């Protein structure tokens, strides 16, 4: 069985079917990119996987269990972590406190709310997460004082502190400079060493460099799926999306 599998997953918004009976599979450890024109249903699909949007029909299985009916916080507890498309760090909090908010969730999972937080575990989880994105020297800086690119990294650090098994990145490189993008790709590969990555991305260079497999969506359905080479060669994809 796959690590993540959806069966006939559907979401309708009024008369519009944003995602139409999608069967999507993901194997453990892979970096998968989902691409497609605007309105193809990419964000709706991953939102259903994370639990932000409830499916109209269909099922989702993750890590051997049916999670279709689980609320988002229980999915986070099982290891599905979503990184927002629009940077949504807590601007008034320092980098440390931002990550601590995530880490405190991770270190208290499954414990009663009045159970004291293991401060040592909390601090080291935060420090590790900040170090992985190379923000450990700016621990005390308020998030609002960081340049945009660093805010995105902080966002990733918050996700890492949750110890994801499946990390969903929604257009992570939007608004980053060339140099920042290169750095970001390196980071994603490092994260992929112990997590599966699902990436929605418009920047084709990033997709080609990172993804082992690519899923192309169009009009709420999966149009094609394969290795980057297969996707670039596919006439259907070229016609619908790449426009070549």
């Amino acid at each position, binding site marked *: 069985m796959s690590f993540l599998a959806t069966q006939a997953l559907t979401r309708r918004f009024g008369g519009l079917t944003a995602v139409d009976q999608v069967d999507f599979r993901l194997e453990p450890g892979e970096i998968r990119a989902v691409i497609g024109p605007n309105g193809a249903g990419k964000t709706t699909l991953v939102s259903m996987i994370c639990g*932000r949007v409830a499916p109209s029909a269909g099922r989702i299985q993750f890590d051997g269990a049916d999670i279709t009916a689980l609320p988002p*916080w229980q999915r*986070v507890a099982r290891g599905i972590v979503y990184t*927002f498309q629009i940077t*949504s760090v807590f601007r*008034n909090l320092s980098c440390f*406190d931002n990550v601590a908010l*995530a880490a405190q969730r991770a270190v208290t999972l499954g414990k009663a709310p009045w159970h004291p937080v293991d401060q040592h575990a909390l601090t080291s989880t935060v420090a590790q997460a900040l170090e992985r994105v190379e923000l450990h020297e700016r621990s005390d800086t308020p998030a609002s004082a960081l340049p945009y690119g660093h805010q995105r990294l902080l966002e990733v650090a918050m996700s890492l502190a949750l110890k994801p098994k499946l990390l969903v990145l929604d257009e992570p490189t939007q608004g980053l400079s060339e140099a920042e993008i290169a750095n970001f790709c390196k980071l994603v590969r490092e994260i992929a060493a112990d997590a599966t990555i699902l990436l929605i991305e418009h920047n084709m260079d990033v997709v080609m460099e990172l993804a082992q497999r690519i899923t192309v969506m169009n009009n709420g359905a999966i149009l094609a799926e394969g290795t980057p080479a297969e996707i670039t060669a596919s006439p259907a994809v070229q016609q619908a999306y790449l426009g070549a």
Partner: protein
Amino acid sequence: MQGSQHRSLALHGSALAVLFLLQFVLPPYHHSNFTSIMVLAVYGIGYNILIGYTGLLSLGHAMFFAAGLYAAGLGVHYLGLDPVSAFIFGAAATFVFATAVGLVALRTSGVSFMIVTMMFAQACYLLILYFNDVTRGDEGIVLNEAARQIGGLSLIDPTVRYNLALVLFAGALILCLVLIRSRVGRVLVAIRENEERVKMLGYHTFRYKLLALALSGLLSGAAGAAYALMFGYVGATFASIEYSIYALLWVLLGGSGTVLGPLIGALLMFYLVEWTSEVTESYRIVVGAALVLLTLFFPRGILGTLREKRLRWLP
């Protein structure tokens, strides 16, 4: 971090010390005013936990103040409870009541939450008047002076009242400080900033909001119970929309999301209403104007503006 904690301790400690010392210099009239203001500030602190720290705007908080007021007042009047039991009963009953209201009202958010809480409060107000036989909502109940004794202390004695109000205020202040420094408090502030994000960090935000509402209700109810016991009067006016709006005004004026804001707001509004009602019958127009001016020019309130300009460490 350490420095800001020390400064915060020093600030709140000296605020309490000033309130303690004021009782020796205030003339009797203001002495009694300050007693009410401290009790009302506890109500404000309760309200602030919800609006200032969790970002939930309730327009019906008078129902919690009145719940504590009536639970304690009717407890004394009908069941012959002593003041200490009546106070605990009032606060505990409001905690349960606020949790029940929260289970329904927190299914909504934003404007709908404002409307739902306001409807609940109006329903409470009308219920108090409807069961007039029991509540004497329209004319009110004056509590028996003999019943308002704790051991050898009489709640009619101004010094006793002042110091009990101070103890209650100090308790609320400490509870609020502890709450916002705790990990639960950090999650509440994060919900205020961006609830969607907090959900995706794995938090069951509904539970946190319910806890905030229950604690907010607990403090509001404790203030109501204390008010009934100290001033010996229980009436439906305390459940009216006016008292919901007052809490909002105190918090906005003093600074929403600041620990001392509700005290400063309650103090200024109390005297503003006091002075203007001497001059004119229509003092409510001043209350209204204050609300408009605040929203336009001082959206962060007094302490909120101070924090923004120079005192960034202010909790």
